[in-house]
């Protein structure tokens, strides 16, 4: 295979003029100067560049233009320096490695759906160029005596074809294991993150920067924009900051909740069971929420409460929604580490009646629980908790954290609804990017989780299903249609085992 590739590249070189061949040769000499990776990694990166050059040749891009797009300056000194940095985990991230189990870890996925099919050869180069600007992401999770931490890990970060179930656990335990993956499928570029690395906002900055780099490689001129980072700028220390110590509150609170009801239906062993994207007209969503005199988050949270009630057979108890809150709203920050807390909306089952009746209560709860004071108190709690237990060795913290997370954790909530808001992007994106979506990885006991992301004309409401029972999403659809939405539904087929599929075939 390698020989075949070499032959293809040799053949490509043989068709070049002497001048172009010399340019390519100089380019690879210069590439070598940017490399200090092990030879096997260097060869793979060289092969990536060869593939990109052959792609450019196939689509009629001149050698000179191709080489300028692939300029080795974009590699910077990142691959030419031995790894020496390490990063402590922020206070929110510390729980994720402690609470993960075999087959379960907190993973989320952000995707950009382009208008044209993704070119893998260029996406690989885009990742190679982009990752150097995010040194915090170019790391492996390690175990310290007191806490886990992120250790710099220089390697070729490879893209993967999206041929598996989204948000599957990552093998973060292996030597040089990474805590994120970049995947592609047809027109979609996806990045999956282990939550210990970053939160939705940090993930979005990475995705936006990756997409911008990819588009530049395809020849699109992308202007500078605050939503993305310049890949050739030096990383800023503020991007790695643990911001939890900034809380203005000295009162700890926020984690005291009682158990919530769960939707009915057996949690599937293979999770997620299905991914559903409800594509909604963003303008219509805004006006509908406004007609109820609430925000989009309040409006959809209300519908989620109603759909959750519909999806449970329980007769008493509370339905509770966990809403992640970006703390950058309260404490402006450039950090790419986790800086998210959550607010919980909770209503007794019997009091969840109609949208118009409960909307005001949801609005009131949201306003109260996401107030600056309440969020600051919760932030202080998280910081205090991490500070109080820091002196205990990890082998003591780890089992205790697992037990506490098992007893509390997801059991406090029926579902999660994460709204990352309106994606801000350079104007050139509108011609090349159709929409975005955001998937929360499967939870251990919550039957469904929801997210919302808005870009241009589309708001994508994503439901991650962990059970076969379709009640929740069918009720969501019914409620949305009742409010006049025309919903386009995209998603995955059911992720089922072969055995079940063959049984179905027989039954048919």
């Amino acid at each position, binding site marked *: 295979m390698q020989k075949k590739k070499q032959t293809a590249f040799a053949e490509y070189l043989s068709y070049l003029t002497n001048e172009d061949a010399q340019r390519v040769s100089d380019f690879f000499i210069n590439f070598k100067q940017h490399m200090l990776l*092990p030879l096997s990694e260097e060869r793979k990166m060289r092969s990536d560049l060869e593939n990109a050059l052959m792609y450019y040749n196939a689509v009629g891009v001149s050698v000179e233009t191709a080489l300028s797009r692939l300029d080795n300056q974009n590699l910077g000194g990142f691959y030419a320096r031995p790894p*020496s940095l*390490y990063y*402590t985990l922020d206070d929110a991230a510390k729980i994720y*490695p402690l609470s*993960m*189990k*075999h*087959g379960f*870890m907190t993973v989320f996925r952000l995707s950009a759906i382009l208008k044209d099919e993704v070119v893998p050869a260029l996406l690989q180069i885009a990742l190679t160029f982009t990752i150097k600007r995010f040194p915090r992401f170019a790391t*492996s*999770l*390690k*175990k*310290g*005596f*007191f*806490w*886990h*931490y992120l*250790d710099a*890990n220089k390697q070729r970060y490879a893209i993967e074809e*999206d*041929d*598996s*179930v*989204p948000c599957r656990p990552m093998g*973060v*335990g*292996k*030597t*040089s294991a990474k805590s994120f993956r970049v995947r592609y*499928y*047809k027109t*979609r570029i996806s990045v999956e993150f282990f939550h210990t690395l970053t939160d939705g906002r940090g993930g979005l900055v990475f995705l936006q920067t990756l997409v911008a780099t990819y588009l530049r490689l395809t020849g699109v001129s992308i202007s500078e924009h605050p939503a993305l980072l310049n890949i050739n700028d030096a990383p800023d220390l503020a991007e790695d900051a643990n911001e939890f110590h900034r809380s203005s509150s000295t009162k700890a609170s926020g984690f005291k909740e009682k158990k919530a009801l769960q939707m009915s239906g057996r949690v599937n*062993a*293979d999770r997620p069971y299905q*991914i*559903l*994207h409800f594509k909604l007209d963003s303008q219509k969503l805004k006006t509908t929420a406004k007609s109820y005199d609430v925000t989009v988050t309040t409006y959809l949270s209300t519908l989620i409460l109603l759909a959750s009630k519909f999806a449970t057979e329980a007769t008493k108890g509370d339905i509770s929604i966990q809403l992640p809150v970006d703390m950058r709203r309260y404490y402006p920050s450039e950090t790419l580490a986790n800086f998210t807390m959550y607010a919980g909306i909770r209503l007794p089952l019997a009091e969840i009646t109609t949208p118009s009746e409960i909307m005001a209560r949801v609005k009131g709860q949201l306003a109260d629980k996401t107030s600056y004071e309440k969020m600051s108190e919760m932030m202080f709690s998280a910081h205090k908790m991490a500070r109080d237990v*820091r*002196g205990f060795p990890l082998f003591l913290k780890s089992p205790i954290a697992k037990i506490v997370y098992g007893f509390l954790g997801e059991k406090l909530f029926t579902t999660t609804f994460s709204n990352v808001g309106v994606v801000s992007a350079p104007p050139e994106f509108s011609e090349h990017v159709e929409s975005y979506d955001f998937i929360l990885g499967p939870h251990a006991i919550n039957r469904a989780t929801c997210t919302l992301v808005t870009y241009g004309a589309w708001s994508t409401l994503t439901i991650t299903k962990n059970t076969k029972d*379709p009640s929740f*999403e*069918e009720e969501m*659809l019914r409620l949305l249609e009742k409010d006049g939405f025309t919903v*386009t*539904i*995209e*998603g*995955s*087929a059911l*992720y*089922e*085992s*072969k*055995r079940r*599929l063959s049984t179905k075939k027989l039954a048919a």
Partner: protein
Amino acid sequence: MKVNVVYPQKNLRRDLRRLAIYVAVRLFPLAAIVSLVVNILYGTSWWSAIVIWSLWGLWQLIFSPTLVEHNRTSIAAKTTINITILIVIIYLVYPDWPGIEVAALVVGFGLVTSATLFFSNIARQKQNVFPLIIFSLIAIVFAAVSLIFRKDEPLGWAMIVAISLALAIILSTIIILRINYFKELKKRFIL
């Protein structure tokens, strides 16, 4: 509800590992309880301790390996520690053989194995130096304590060999990694 499928079709294969865990998670505790009950009812010695520790060791090695830093050095170190504890338990239950000295020899063998795995690909494995250091320190403590209490027994040299090997490994890693050795230690003790 009509769903326009935009993800690749994925028929999940039967997960044999998960099936094995499903069986083991029921079978292992059952086997441990049965052996303990039989031991209490009919036993003359505490042989069930050997069974229970063996089951625990197997569980950790096969069904529930470490999720962070599951590398060849740490696997070798952890396996050696589990086997050593098993030998010590066997010795405590059946004391008529030089169990502690054999345990020290196993520690020595484990140190050689871990060090070989570590040094055979130092460029990649240097990030896994911490499990090797911890294992070497545990080996020194174990062998030193054994030596103090059993210096007059035959095969006492096994403990000296284990201590020497552990010290040699620590020194070698310091010499090879130089300043990075201390940087590595600093990272591992972040509060």
